[in-house]
């Protein structure tokens, strides 16, 4: 039993480290920094200036929202790449042929992306608060850290789903990219969800990050556990559902590929 647990833990950590190192497709610190911060940083500035132009009363809302979205770079794009690149790099057949249990293989891909995403938002948020002269005096820091960690974890569910789509479609990256950009609209990053047309609001409620970002904003405004507890529980549940969907679809795709022998050739 203990030997089995050690084996699973080792497999999990081994997968986590090697998939992060080799499949996240960055070769130098420069390309790592530009791919992680380039588009998110400049799109945040872009939306900020649009906000100023149209007369948004509090443009800091846009900056904070985009900073809180930063874990999605790892959670969605990073994990999608680490799953999808198996096929592109020609390692898919070996992975599918391996007798190793699938759960640590699959879930291991998220560990370093969660840590990386959490570290990113933990560094970027204080900088944003400093620039906009927002005080942390009234903020429950432990609760804020919990919100940021939760955002870094729940975003991985979408990454798993998008990664699986990348396995079955050569245009997987386009779907990932489109979904990632739709988050600018749907989850309250640039404006409150209440500003969305009525038909989009249920979609927003069904997505991870919506409640987490709102909760983090509320914590930054000084509220405590009792006020954001419901939002955080909702975020945990939605996040788990998405991770489960990702895992199940990966299994289904794997089984289908065994039947048709087509996964590595599409």
């Amino acid at each position, binding site marked *: 039993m203990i030997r089995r647990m050690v084996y699973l833990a080792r497999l999990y950590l081994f997968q986590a480290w090697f998939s992060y190192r080799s499949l996240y497709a960055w070769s*130098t610190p*420069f*390309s790592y920094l*530009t*791919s992680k911060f*380039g*588009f998110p940083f*400049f*799109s945040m*500035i*872009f*939306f900020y*200036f*649009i*906000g*100023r*132009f*149209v*007369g*948004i*009363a509090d443009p800091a809302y*846009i900056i904070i929202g985009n900073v809180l979205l930063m874990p999605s770079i790892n959670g969605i794009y990073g994990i999608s790449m680490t799953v999808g690149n198996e096929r592109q790099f020609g390692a898919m057949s070996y992975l599918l042929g391996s007798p190793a249990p699938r759960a640590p293989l699959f879930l291991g891909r998220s560990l370093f992306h969660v840590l990386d995403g959490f570290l990113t938002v933990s560094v970027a948020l204080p900088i944003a608060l400093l620039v906009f002269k927002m005080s942390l005096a009234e903020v429950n820091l432990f609760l804020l850290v919990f919100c940021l960690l939760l955002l870094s974890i729940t975003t991985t569910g979408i990454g798993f789903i998008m990664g699986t789509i990348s396995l079955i479609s050569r*245009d997987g*990256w*386009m779907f990932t*990219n*489109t979904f990632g*950009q*739709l988050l*600018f*609209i749907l989850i309250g990053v*640039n*404006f*409150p969800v209440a*500003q*969305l047309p009525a038909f989009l609001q249920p979609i927003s409620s069904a997505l991870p990050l919506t409640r987490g970002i709102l909760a983090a904003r509320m914590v930054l405004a000084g509220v405590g556990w009792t006020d954001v507890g419901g939002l955080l529980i909702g975020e945990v549940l939605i996040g788990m559902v998405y991770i489960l969907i990702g895992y199940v679809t990966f299994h289904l795709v794997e089984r289908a590929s065994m039947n048709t022998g087509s996964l590595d050739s599409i």
Partner: protein
Amino acid sequence: MGSFIRLAIRQMDVQFRMRVLSLWSLGLYYIQPAIFSAVGMLLSRAAGNSSPDLVYTVVGAGMMGMWSGLVFTSTYDIRTDRREGTLEIIVGSPTSLRRVEGLRTLLNILAGLSSLVVAVLAAVLIFDYSFANVNIAGTILALLLILLGLWCMGVFLANFLAWSRVSGTVVDLMEMPMAILCGFMFPISVLPGWLQKVSGIFPIRWALEGMRDAMNGTPLAQPLIIKLLISLGLSIAFLLLARWFDGKVHDHIRVTGELHSI
């Protein structure tokens, strides 16, 4: 001349098929601009405006589609050639890389123009945008200068990809800064003064300002003509720079033989 036309038709035919058959291009030309346009509209709504500024929010998003399309097609073409081993063949062939890349970029820009056309159609059909006050001649002239500016910048940037693989990352990074500096979805006056000065070196910024002025009814008189002339001058400067850089890159890669390994 006949051989050039044949080359142009073949190159553009291949490029056109690649663009049409790629979902990635669909995302670049239509989906991403539509998403940015939606963000602009919803921000405008959140600010309490009764309707968004269509010239900035919708037409500006079409402009974004053109620029993003250019960045990720003209430069990625070189990357694809490098990955598939055809870059050496193109560089070694009697037809210069400059000519091949110039033709490819031209088709990429014309494909990107469809993004702007769709944006204008959306403004007219969905948001009832009226051409009643538009200075049509000025708008068309400015649009031609935007296309020229994009082409000159595309040809210039493509050299970086042939020169070094790392520079591709830098070129990727230019997508959003250019959208900010050229004011694709907001007026340049929103930017801090020092950024406005930086943006002055890009021909697209001046032509785009000219097009917006013309769309808002400014006659083809001195202020508008000056903007268009600045755009033309800067485009020519970029083209000359591209030619000079092109020679340098060709010398470098032939002397060092590092085309595939860099």
